[in-house]
């Protein structure tokens, strides 16, 4: 039987930011599938134009509350690159620890608050909190722990206070770090429970080969350090990154789409896992062995489990970072000064994937131009293409099933729509 469906999901819920999904099916064939991004653009390039380099991270962090530490770190790296500043090992470790905490909190928020209701058949996390506290407990505790780490390091979980170009304004106390370490060690049991919960749900096996891009450092899994790496082309010079992508405007989105010479590519937890899984911590590697997929994995729905594996890795790695900080001692890190000016590039792995910032700073220390390439915007093309691949297979199903599949796919990507509309690629004149 051929069915007509015109499905419009207005203001898709349980994602970060505002988006619509439009699916038009006539006589059993898919006529049109769009992920409309209707988030208001915020024009950050205008906001930071003429601002001093010391303020830029403060402003640019406000692109996105959920990955504010990632934006801050990418910005600081770019500014430091532009000004020829070097940071100490200690400052680098503290930033890495911030990113671990942010990614754990972001992944857990996504898994427990946004995705879990789909699996449990509830409209939100609130009934689960009331009726299924033991299911929710590991999620709430891990999120609480991640936010606690951010608060110890940076005063609050959103918009870090102490990270500045060339240094760190606040050092945690030794006892605070020891407490963080103890709580991270105890988190292993919680992470097992997270794995059991999410490992147990079945998702569509829909699969589509594509290019994966993520950072790859000389050693380690890499969130703060590394050079962009493609599973097809290998390493990409960071200065070349922006040129390798083609960004283009589509009529139904306030966020731009992007592609490489190979077409669609994917960034984020699953891309990182595919590129760097040999560098996981021992426990995370054991989880990966138990996963219902093997590497390379091209099943977009598995991004959820990739996030769990990353949480395990990051919690274990964070313990190592704390140990190294404790060994080193906790001296104040007053900001260092720049030696030059010009253009700089900074990249980190944000929770949702590779994040690129570049700035040109003039000889008065003021920002002249900026360019940010944001993970979700890089994934939008991939999401739409997957929707086109997924929906025909769902067609015998009822409208509800199609809606569920479509929403589930978009959510699995963990799109951060508020972020993605803040692409900037202007050279000011």
């Amino acid at each position, binding site marked *: 039987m051929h069915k007509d469906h015109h499905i419009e999901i207005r203001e898709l819920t349980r994602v970060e930011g505002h988006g619509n999904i439009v699916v038009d099916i006539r006589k059993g064939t898919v006529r049109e599938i769009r992920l409309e991004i209707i988030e*208001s*653009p915020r024009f950050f390039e205008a906001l930071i134009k003429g601002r001093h380099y010391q303020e830029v991270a403060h402003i640019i962090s406000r692109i996105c509350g959920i990955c504010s530490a990632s934006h801050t770190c990418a910005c600081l790296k770019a500014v430091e690159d532009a000004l020829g500043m070097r940071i100490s090992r200690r400052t680098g470790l503290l930033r890495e620890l911030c990113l671990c905490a942010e990614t754990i909190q972001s992944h857990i928020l996504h898994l427990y608050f946004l995705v879990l209701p789909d699996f449990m058949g509830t*409209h939100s996390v609130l009934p689960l909190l009331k009726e299924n506290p033991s299911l929710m407990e590991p999620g*709430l505790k891990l999120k609480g722990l991640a936010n606690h780490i951010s608060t110890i390091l940076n*005063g609050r979980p959103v918009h870090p206070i102490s990270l500045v170009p060339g240094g760190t304004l*606040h050092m945690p106390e030794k006892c605070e770090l020891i407490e963080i370490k103890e709580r991270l060690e105890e988190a292993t049991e919680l992470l097992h429970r997270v794995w059991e919960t999410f490992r147990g749900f079945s998702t569509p096996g829909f699969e589509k080969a594509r290019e994966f891009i993520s950072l790859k450092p000389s050693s380690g899994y890499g969130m703060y350090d590394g050079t962009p790496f493609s599973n097809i082309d290998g390493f990409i010079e960071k200065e070349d990154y922006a040129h390798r992508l083609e960004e283009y*405007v589509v009529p139904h989105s306030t966020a731009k789409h992007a592609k490489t010479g190979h077409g669609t590519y994917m960034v984020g937890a699953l891309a990182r896992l595919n590129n760097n899984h040999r560098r996981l911590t021992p426990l995370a590697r054991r989880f990966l062995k138990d996963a219902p997929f093997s590497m390379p994995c091209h099943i977009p729905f598995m991004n959820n489990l990739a996030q769990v594996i990353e949480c395990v890795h990051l919690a274990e790695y964070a313990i190592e970072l704390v140990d190294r900080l404790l060994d080193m001692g906790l001296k104040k890190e007053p900001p260092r000064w720049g030696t030059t000016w010009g253009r700089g590039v900074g990249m980190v792995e944000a929770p949702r994937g590779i994040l690129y910032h570049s700035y040109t700073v003039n000889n008065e220390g003021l920002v002249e131009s900026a360019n940010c390439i944001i993970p979700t915007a890089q994934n939008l093309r991939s999401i739409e293409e997957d929707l086109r691949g997924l929906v025909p297979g769902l067609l015998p199903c009822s409208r509800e099933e199609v809606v569920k599949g479509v929403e589930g796919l978009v959510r699995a990507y963990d799109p951060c729509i508020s972020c993605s509309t803040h692409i900037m690629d202007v050279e000011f004149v």
Partner: protein
Amino acid sequence: MRWIKRPRIAFFSLTSCEGCQLMVLNCEEELRELSTRVDVVNFREATDLKRDDYQVAFIEGSVTREEEAEKLKEIRQRAETIITLGACSTTGGINALKNRFSPEYVTECVYGRNPPNRLLVENIPAMPVEEVIEVDYRIPGCPVSKEEFLGFVKALVLGIPPGLPEYPVCNECKMEGNICVFEKGVACMGPVTRGGCRAVCVSFGSICWGCRGLLDDANTDAHRETLGNHGLGDDEITKRFDLYSSFYIHRKGRCTKTTT
């Protein structure tokens, strides 16, 4: 404010980074308790429910498009109590920095001279919510503090009108035992900024950037002078005030008041 036994509350987000909503979701410990005291009937980021029978609406984000202004008017008709959540909705926040340029110019910056869908990218100067509709209470901050948000919810549940501190950040900064950054020759917006955040930025080694907005009776002229005495040029001083209060500065030509 009327006491409501189990208020139905809604969260709406306009142009923002969603960081303030995230601070709400960060109340892990309190979420369970909260869900027994209030009914959340509309919170796009957290739930599929989209009910319109809310009594209290929290609004995050600035108004930067005509549709957002329309949406606000609708919300005002439905809600008994409207509370702004964060700097974006309370003072225009960081978003208002774009008001230095024309909407056409900022659009062109991002999408080029011929955006493929003009409707989608159309924007107006960023405004706080109170420019469009009447606001009952305001929670400032970029982001809001979790404690302050929970305090507001508690007041709601008890039927007590919530209030904001009428003293500057400096008062709390001293109580926290910080050394004033002015003593180190660094300029700070604490003296003119509304307290209530326990001067968290100074405690964590930075300065007060002014995210909670200017005090109603802030002596901005005196503060301009102080900043000038600490070596900031006119342009730098304006930028300091601009960061979080540019909406009011832009409109009035000078920075005197936070409310209309």
